[in-house]
């Protein structure tokens, strides 16, 4: 059975006079333990999809089944509970609380889950990302890579089913970015479902499956192996789009979806 099952998921919202179709009927199934990348340019709908997958928002229409539970129309209260128990977020800008120490940052989800043994669990999560000795440091005293590792510890402290990472290496140099990706690989090996949202194809192809989006639709969804990896990286699948990777706010040229 799928861990995540989306049926005709739509998200429309008004912007000025027009209705923006941020998601236009997405069907998607992700199994437990998969490592999936969602990629696409700005405006492709990948952020909206991530917000919906993360239960931060509700779809305009369609169904979202998460771990056997229909979550697309839950109350704010229940959505908060789902986020707390089943989802761990990692953000591009780390989003740590500056005033408090690394270990207190890691403890935040435990705190809202009204859990006991907070100190012990937080310390273990920090040790898992190799930051045990830095527990009492404030975010301002840590390097970018270390901050992101604190954020990952915070995401995994509640032992969620899913890690949702939004451009986790976007603010890091290549070497540090690789270290962070290694942690995701480790979590994946340990059985956690990892969903990575990124516009960088060389990051995306490190997952076992790459989903490409454009204009609110999935245009490509494939397993990554040696041949598809080089295709994805070279951009031969969608030459007009993939020649210039990176944030691009101009409307994407029309291209036929492939592989759906």
């Amino acid at each position, binding site marked *: 059975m799928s861990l995540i099952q989306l049926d005709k998921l739509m998200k429309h919202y008004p912007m000025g006079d027009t209705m923006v179709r941020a998601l236009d009927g997405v069907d998607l199934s992700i199994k437990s333990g998969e490592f999936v990348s969602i990629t696409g340019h700005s405006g492709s709908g990948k952020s909206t999809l991530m*917000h919906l997958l*993360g239960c*931060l928002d509700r779809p305009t229409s369609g169904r979202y089944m998460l771990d056997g539970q229909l979550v697309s129309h839950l109350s704010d209260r229940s959505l908060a509970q789902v986020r707390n128990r089943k989802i761990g*977020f990692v953000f591009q800008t780390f989003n740590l609380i500056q*005033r408090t120490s690394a270990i207190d940052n890691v403890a935040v*989800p435990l705190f809202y889950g009204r859990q006991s043994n907070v100190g012990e669990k937080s310390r273990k999560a920090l040790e898992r990302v190799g930051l045990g000795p830095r527990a009492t440091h404030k975010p301002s005293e840590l390097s970018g890579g270390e901050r992101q590792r604190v954020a990952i510890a915070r995401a995994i402290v509640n032992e969620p089913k899913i890690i949702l990472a939004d451009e986790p290496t976007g603010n890091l140099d290549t070497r540090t970015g690789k270290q962070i990706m290694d942690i995701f690989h480790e979590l994946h090996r340990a059985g956690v479902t990892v969903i990575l949202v990124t516009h960088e194809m060389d990051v995306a192809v490190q997952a076992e499956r790459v989903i490409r989006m454009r204009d609110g639709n999935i245009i490509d969804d494939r397993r990554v192996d040696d041949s598809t990896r080089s295709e994805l990286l070279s951009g031969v699948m969608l030459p007009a789009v993939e020649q210039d990777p990176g944030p691009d706010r101009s409307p994407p040229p029309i291209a036929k979806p492939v592989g759906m």
Partner: protein
Amino acid sequence: MFFLRVCLMSFRSLFVHPLRTILATLGVIFGVAAVVAAMAILEGMSSRILGGFESLGSNKIFVMPNIERRSGRMVGSFDSLDLDDADAIGRCNAVARAMPQISNPGALVKFRSKSTNADVSGVTEVHADMNNQEMQDGEFISAANVQGSASVVVLGSKIKEELFGGRPAIDEKIKITGIRGSRTFTVIGVFAPKGNVGRSDADRQICVPITTAMDKLYGTDSVHVILAEARSPTDADIDQAKEEIAQTLRRRHKIRAGQQDDFQVQSQKDMVTQFSQVTGILKVVFYSIAGISLFVGGIGIMNIMLVAVTERTREIGVRMAMGAQRSDVLKQFLIEASVVSFFGGTIGVIVGWGLANAIETVTRLFETTTTMTSVVIALTMATTTGVISGIYPAWKASRLDPVEALRYE
């Protein structure tokens, strides 16, 4: 646990912007300081004055001329009581004894080149006993002194000290200046130090026979007050004595039923009640001032909380993503607002206490008393202010959309 952790978290966030916290809580600090200082002063004044009343003895009844202001005009006269009234009151069945008295605060007294101001009291031989005044030296005015209008004087301990220092005063001659000019008196006694009686300092008092005071110093036939004692301090005996005194005086002054009395009769208890009413009003005034100050303080706190909510929009988004309920966010900001104002309140208590002590040291009029009650009231008011002014900002924070909040730069 949740509550404690939020309190701790809020407490830490106070020190992220210490100056901002102090400025925002200034209103609360002043409000609380005002309450604590005012209450300490009021409490100190009350216990001094009430203590003074008590030292008089609780079976005392004061008979005074009745003077009222009616639409701006004085009604009644200052000279409705005389020595014969005092004798008549003394003969009442319910009255143990009575004493007429005239008093003149701040009269000039001189011994050779030294001079000072004293409260001159014209009294009879029972004065020392009625006011529980002990003699330190010499003796008190006798009945013969009163009958013979003798020019003798008994000095309060401070006056003796000021005029004579360490030297003996008995049999020395001093000059007292009254309306009729300066007269020479022989010192026959010195009181032991006593402190306050009623509203005046007994140690600055000098006593002369009332007849002498009336004839030689002030040239008057009337007395200022007649001090009477009921047979016992029970309410029944005091009321009976008051009634009998009133009837005696009405008869003597030929006041018909329905006519306005030209005198008033008050027991010590009546005066304490009146005083309590006055302090009660003062308390209301002080609490109102504090209330206004706290209201302003509340606006300050609301302001800083609104700033905090805007500033921490992204943090709120992150907390929501981590599973914070809207109610958690609400509680968190409410608790933070109360912690801020409680903190301000605590500083206010310290400032108020310091202020009261400073006033005590500078004026030396009375001992201030900071009571636990006023501290608890002030802190409760401060914390309530915090909660009330935190409601809107906290509600605003809790209604944020997690997606929007996470996007906030």
